[in-house]
């Protein structure tokens, strides 16, 4: 769907993107991660043709990014806004028509979405009379109303209560099921784990991580296993700092060059192995670990 090669962008002397390569396959949810100021917004703006890169190539479905693609992209910026004095309906029509829909088409699609999200009664209200959550929903519909093939969402859940966040999450998954490719930029790692198929992490203008969630997680395994033993037959070594309760004992063990099987058979002599499980890092841990180690270099 989207392929970026050797993209560079700098503002004066500060670099925003350095030799960035990125591949987003069709029909997946792609997590774009990175701390503030890493260059995510610059990348998103370049894909949206708000600004231009200094060098590099961007291809959408194999053809270079051009103004023809504007109607195929939906963009929800992190800092979003609506005309306060405008009515919900007029506003949605305006945004939909700017994306190239005809008056007729815009009307029927907006009606469809308003009904789907139970917002039809707000049609004639002004944005300034809506709650923040309601306005966010209006904004969300405006972003997807033209059925974009590529949807770029920057912190889509901010401003929503848990209930509405759930509704939006379901809509995003629904769009994915219809074949929409989604780029999701967020700091909420739990939604990354829940929604994303692939992730890329950008730090200090460079990509420092890229892959499927599964691959990323497995490559960051600390090679540590958690163990629960019952009915101890033997004292466990002092260095396995353990948590004792009644007659069971819970602790974690590094592999230290052994295979998991060797480790397990070694454990058996101490008692009954109740649980033996590899520690899988959360995306949050990987994120923090990556940024910290990148900062040391």
């Amino acid at each position: 769907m989207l392929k970026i090669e050797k993209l560079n962008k700098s503002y004066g002397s500060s670099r925003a993107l350095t030799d960035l390569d990125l591949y987003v396959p069709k029909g997946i949810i792609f997590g774009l991660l990175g701390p503030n100021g890493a260059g995510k917004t610059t990348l998103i703006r370049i894909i949206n043709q708000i600004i231009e890169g200094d060098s590099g190539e961007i291809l959408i479905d194999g053809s270079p990014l051009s103004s023809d693609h504007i109607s195929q992209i939906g963009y929800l910026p992190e800092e979003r806004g609506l005309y306060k004095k405008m009515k919900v309906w007029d506003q949605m029509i305006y945004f939909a028509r700017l994306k190239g829909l005809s008056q007729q088409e815009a009307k029927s699609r907006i009606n469809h979405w308003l009904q789907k999200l139970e917002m039809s009664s707000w049609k004639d209200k002004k944005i300034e009379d809506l709650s923040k959550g309601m306005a966010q929903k209006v904004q969300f519909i405006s972003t997807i109303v033209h059925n974009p093939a590529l949807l770029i969402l920057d912190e889509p859940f901010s401003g929503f209560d848990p209930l509405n966040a759930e509704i939006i999450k379901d809509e995003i998954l629904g769009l994915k099921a219809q074949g929409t490719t989604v780029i999701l930029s967020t700091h909420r790692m739990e939604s990354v784990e829940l929604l994303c198929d692939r992730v890329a992490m950008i730090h200090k203008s460079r990509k420092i991580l890229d892959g499927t969630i599964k691959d990323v997680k497995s490559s960051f395994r600390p090679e540590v296993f958690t163990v629960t033993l019952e009915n101890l037959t033997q004292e466990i070594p002092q260095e396995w700092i353990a948590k004792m309760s009644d007659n069971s004992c819970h602790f974690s063990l590094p592999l230290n060059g052994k295979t998991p099987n060797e480790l397990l058979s070694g454990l058996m002599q101490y008692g009954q192995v109740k649980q033996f499980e590899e520690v899988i890092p959360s995306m949050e841990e990987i994120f923090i670990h990556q940024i910290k180690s990148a900062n040391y270099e």
Partner: protein
Amino acid sequence: MNKIWLVIQREFLSRVKKKSFLLATLLTPLIFPAIMGIFVWIATEEKEAQSLRIIEVVDENKLFFLESSEQYAFSFSGNDLETSKEMVQNGDRYGFLYIPKFDLKEPTGIVYYGEENPSMNLISYLENNLKKKIEEQRLFESGIDPKIINEVRTKVSIKSITVDEQGAETVSDATVNYALGFTSGILIYIFIFVYGNQIMQGVIEEKSSRIVEILVSSLKPFQLMMGKIIGIGAVGLTQFLIWVVLIGTLSSVVIGILGMQMPQQQAIEMASPEIAESMPPGSDMAQIFQVISGIDFIGLTLSFIFYFLGGYLLYGALFAAIGSAVDSPSDAQQFMLPVTIPLIVAYMGLFVFVLNDPNGNASFWLSIIPLTSPIAMMGRVSYGVPWTDMVLSMGLLIGGFFFTTWMAGKIYRIGILMHGTKPSYKTLWKWIKTSQ
């Protein structure tokens, strides 16, 4: 193109649908005829009250017989000074004119007593009347027959005619041209300021509410800027046309009603007794009508529309650029100077140079330079401008418009995405130089 049209539509409709637009559009034209009506009404009322005014005259020379007018009657009861003063105090007389005995060569000591401060009109009316009487008396004493004096009295009025290269003649009157140049120049000045500010406010609104990021992901910043400028210009033009129609209709109604109560001749008389005295009835108005009919109204209207729009577009782009560079209207002040100064120079120049000497050097340059020409040229157009000047001025204005729009577009494109930093002129210059 289609997207610019959408922006124009939104900008236009969102403003025209507002209640404040409706109120301003309908009330402003009512205010003009209302003020006019009040003035005419006050004048008419005053005149009615004045017609009863009797002025007692004590003339120790026994020479002056003042003729009564519609406003003032003169009574020669032969009372002495004290009694006459009392009559004023009692309210029996409006005023009292004391003419002591004097040498006709040096008439001094004439005093007017009144309960209230006399108007300029009354004093000059009395002075003119006495002057005429003294002059007649002295001519008579030097042996000239009053009949001859009356015969000799002549009236002169100059009719000015301009001849163009083809030899066609038009009656002209500087007053009419002055008024036309003055009005159209001021209108353009106000229009640029009021609607230029609206552009700026609109850009700041979109920028500070962050709508702009969504908008520019759908269309080019330049399209957005142009759509806004044209849309707001259309609002202004609509409002202006409604005003012209409403003011025209209402004014003619008001003048029609009040005009029946006060003929033109009296209005002139009231304004200045001197002019009234020297003008045969109707000639003044007749000439003005002749002048008005001689003015090339189509040409005037066309150039007004051209400079009206040209000036607005030229400055509109600058206002948009300022709005894009700042986060709030209060920050905009620092960049307003380069826009305000040429406008004020044009405005002052219109009065100091252009209207007084439309073909002078200063007037020429003011009407050629694009930043001042929309206002200054209107001052010249009503007097007639050589077509070479006109072509030069219009060409430069179009060029100037392209230049400011190009420059503003560069600032705008970067400015709308910048938040939290207060740019300086140096930063703006950097933005202009940035390619792409």
